[in-house]
């Protein structure tokens, strides 16, 4: 295919337009103020956790991020339902929360797989072959709905480049050969590539480790 006739780039949801841009308000819906506690059901553990976070700060609104993170853990993503539950406990409007949630990369505003595999594709990792690694992980994961494979901006582990964060655990340096085992470990619920876990890596500075 010629460069001059290259296909028009599309977003992950298949549109040429970023998600959300083309969506109108549904006029049959009512406006969404702070949810009514009487009609919004919140799982007791989630409520407890959010309230715990709120108590830590002078202004309870500071707990927004931890609260959204907690809700995402329960619901898998920041679904409208999850947002409403957080809004109900924190006494904020759902719109405020969705605005915050969509700002941050780690809060998902559309449904995703249960296991997150963030492959760092920023400069240091890409210099050492991260783009190929990401391609390999994507291909290997295929359309397995269990996985949420994402190219991520710098994860702060350039010393083990190219690397990935698998459900929060950093592993690296990865080669393309490691990919099948990585996914198998995740599927099996094992620790992923134990020998490549960052947690076990000594400091590079030889004198320091001495």
């Amino acid at each position: 295919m010629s460069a001059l006739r290259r296909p028009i780039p599309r977003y992950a949801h298949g549109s040429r337009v970023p998600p959300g841009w083309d969506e109108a308000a549904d006029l049959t819906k009512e406006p969404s103020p702070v949810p009514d506690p009487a009609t919004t059901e919140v799982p007791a553990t989630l409520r407890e956790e959010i309230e715990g976070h709120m108590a830590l700060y002078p202004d309870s609104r500071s707990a927004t991020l931890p609260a959204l993170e907690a809700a995402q853990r329960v619901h898998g993503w920041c679904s409208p339902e999850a947002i409403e539950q957080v809004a109900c406990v924190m006494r904020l409007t759902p719109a405020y929360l969705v605005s915050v949630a969509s700002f941050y990369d780690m809060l998902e505003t559309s449904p995703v797989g249960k296991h997150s595999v963030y492959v760092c594709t920023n400069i240091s990792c890409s210099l050492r072959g991260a783009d190929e690694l990401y391609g390999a992980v994507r291909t290997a994961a295929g359309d397995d709905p269990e996985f949420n494979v994402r190219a991520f901006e710098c994860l702060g582990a350039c010393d083990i480049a190219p690397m990935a964060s698998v459900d929060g655990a950093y592993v690296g340096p990865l080669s393309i050969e490691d990919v099948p085992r990585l996914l198998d470990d995740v599927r099996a619920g094992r620790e992923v590539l134990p020998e490549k876990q960052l947690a076990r890596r000594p400091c590079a500075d030889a004198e320091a480790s001495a």
Partner: protein
Amino acid sequence: MPRPQARTITFTIDGLEVQAPENAMLVDAAKHGDVEIPVFCYEPKLGQPVGACRMCLVEIEGIPKLQTGCSTPVKDGMVVHTQSERVKEAQNAVVEFLLINHPLDCPVCDKGGECPLQDITFGWGKGTSRFIEPKRHFVKPLELSPTIAIDRERCILCYRCVRFSQEISEDYQLVLQERGAHSYVSTFDGHPYVAPFSGNIVELCPVGALTSRAYRFRARPWDIEDSGSVCTLCPAQCNVTLTVRDERVMRVLARQHPEVDDGWLCDRGRFAYPRLGGDERVSEPLLRDGGELRPVSWERALEEAAAGLKRAGARTGALVGGQATNEEGFLLARLMREGLDSPHIDSRVAGTLPLELQRELGDPSLQAHVSDLEFAHAVLLLDTEPIEDAAILDLRLRKGVRRHGMKLVRASSEELLNKQAAGELVKTLKAAGEEIVVLWHERLTAGPKGAEAARALLDLATTLSLAGAENSGLLEIPAQSNGRGLREAGVLPNASPGLGAPADTGNAAEGLDALGIADALIKGELSAVYLLGVDPLEDSSSLPVWSRSHSPWEQQRPLWEQALERASTVVAHATFLTEGIREHANVVLPAGAYAEKEGTIVHPDGRIQRLRPAVARLGSTRAEWQVLAELAERIGLDLEVRNGMAASQQLFDAVPFYAGLTLEEIGGKGIRWAQRETAAGVASS
């Protein structure tokens, strides 16, 4: 709280020495020297500047980087350049950046011709763009709410709309989603942005991204004329600019008045206008003929109305609605008292209050300003929910709480009447500070305990020593828009114009109040009723949420149903053919909507404001003063009114504390009579 007083300093801008208030933002200070610094995101009404659009970059000597004029307070001796090469290059760059993703659809854009982005591109842009990549394109326009359309292609992310939602109306419904170049303005999960003040975002938008669906494509700026007037849909009486094309109101915009509306407008005031020219309007005189209202000539209608009223004579009652101007009320009161010898005229929904109390409550030294709601230490809301009773005051109270830490206290008349609770209330208020405003609703004085509550309110004012104090006082929200003006014009059963004794009118007898009139009609003691701009049976529940108004007469509805049924003559001087009028009126005389009227009305804080006709009267509608004068003539009374200004003059002459007032003095911004020398008149009358 003392209002900010800024001292004047001198600074240099573009080689010009300019005087400006200290610490004013450079953008504002520059205006004192006739220098314009372009802005998009800066809007002082929205609170603290955010410095997001970077359009206002200026060079300040002594600071290496360019600074944003919107967020830099001006200091004495500052030397500012807005025309240097560096500044020009930065301005060109920002315009170029903004236009990268802004579509070139000015010909179809409603904002075209009155668009700040167009103006700034023309004035401060380079005129060319080096951006050759494809622009983004997508579906547009999209609905954001029943009244507002959003066009995200045009959005320049200036933050004004979301700041309004979050910091002014504080509803947190409209937010920015995603980040960076993907950011877009939206709501939660496709819920519409429906809020009492949502329409303001259309006016705030500096591009055509947010447009009013009702105004969409109706006119271009060169097709229209602007006409300043006052919205009479609620007692807040916001100042508005009516956009007129082909003798129709096409749009209602806010007309900033810091002492009335602070530059905002509620959605009812903004979007209810299509109703003003709508199908429900009465456009010609109607006469009941064989159980049905049929159009007739003015002559015929006036004859019939006069005949009916004359027949009833002193057994006529009159009810005046809040949309009526002072002049209309005043002329009708004359017609009733002098022409028919009937004192039964009322405009108060809450019923009669002894004249004494009325005068004391209206004491000029006790009256608070609207802006006091923002600067007082505490505001007591007595028997009122401002968002429903006078919506725009809600924003003012929020501003007070948010910006000046004002304390908001709510109480009901029961608490006021309870000694202990009242004591607590005083304690709470005094704890907040010395400057206290009591915002109370007319309903406080309704019912059997009304007079007692009014007395308690006056006692409270004395306890808090509100009289004559700075940023303090009482502020009444009348039940009807022009309630205060009608009372001052003498549209009360127990007072003459200027709250004088009834004897001043030549008829010493006290008349019946609204409820009394209804009662008397049922009992047959009265046989005719004149309804001026009022339908006591009006039901507003069928209207869309944003234009719904609560009829103040709702509670009296069952009584009036019977009363109108029993009345032998019902003359309705009406704008809309509402239920009660359609069912019960014998004669319907068409009246104008506020956009067609001339005359004066009085704001709850005593500000006399002027209504000016923006559009021609609908159909064969005649001016109300003219109709009343002709009616009076047929009854045998010459009101000596030959034009609208004469009616105003008569009113000013009749009310002692309006003495010497002229329409010119009222002007476009109105005047508080309490601040005129004649204010003393209220006590002596």
